[in-house]
């Protein structure tokens, strides 16, 4: 029973364009959502988060959008850079530990 789903295993984008990574969740008790980035041989690194009382949070090139009615969130990266190539994990929590999706591998080509 996957409570956090990232249905696209991979995404390829050209440098300078927008990358959109998607995430769906099933548990309506989740109220805090995060995105993590992971490079090979390193642990996941916190990128950006959003509380359920907001529908958008922005940090530089990264913006997270939350649609509570659709139980959907997305991460927008604009403009995409080759250094953004990594695995991106969506994670969510309510009154419980963080639950992670399976990840989406983003490849940004120059």
């Amino acid at each position, binding site marked *: 029973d996957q409570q956090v789903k990232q249905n696209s295993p991979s995404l390829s984008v050209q440098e300078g364009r927008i990358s959109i990574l998607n995430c769906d969740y099933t548990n309506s008790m989740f109220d*805090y959502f995060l995105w993590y980035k992971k490079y090979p041989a390193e642990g996941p690194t916190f990128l950006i988060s959003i509380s359920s009382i907001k529908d958008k949070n922005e940090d530089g090139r990264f913006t997270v959008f939350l649609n509570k009615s659709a139980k959907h969130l997305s991460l927008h990266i604009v403009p995409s850079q080759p250094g953004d190539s990594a695995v991106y994990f969506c994670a969510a929590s309510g009154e*419980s530990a963080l639950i992670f999706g399976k990840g989406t591998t983003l490849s940004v080509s120059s």
Partner: protein
Amino acid sequence: DAGVTQSPTHLIKTRGQQVTLRCSPKSGHDTVSWYQQALGQGPQFIFQYYEEEERQRGNFPDRFSGHQFPNYSSELNVNALLLGDSALYLCASSLWFRGSSYNSPLHFGNGTRLTVT
């Protein structure tokens, strides 16, 4: 500012053996969580420690146990290793606040790669 450190980085064990993995949290953090990441999967929550007590546990058997020390460092022990225990084990630290750490971003170490043969 020291981040989360884990040791060892790699480990090879034989089925049936026992293993201990170690973690030092980020400076200033008091809560440690352990995750297992199998190949092609996202990290799966094992358990969380605060004030030397297990606060929450994921869907893992009793073969997985842990400990937190007064200096906030932590150990993960796995007994009777199975081939399926081969994975990357990630330690994450955070701050406990108002009865939980669930709205505090986790800071991860680079993990311990465990191979069971």
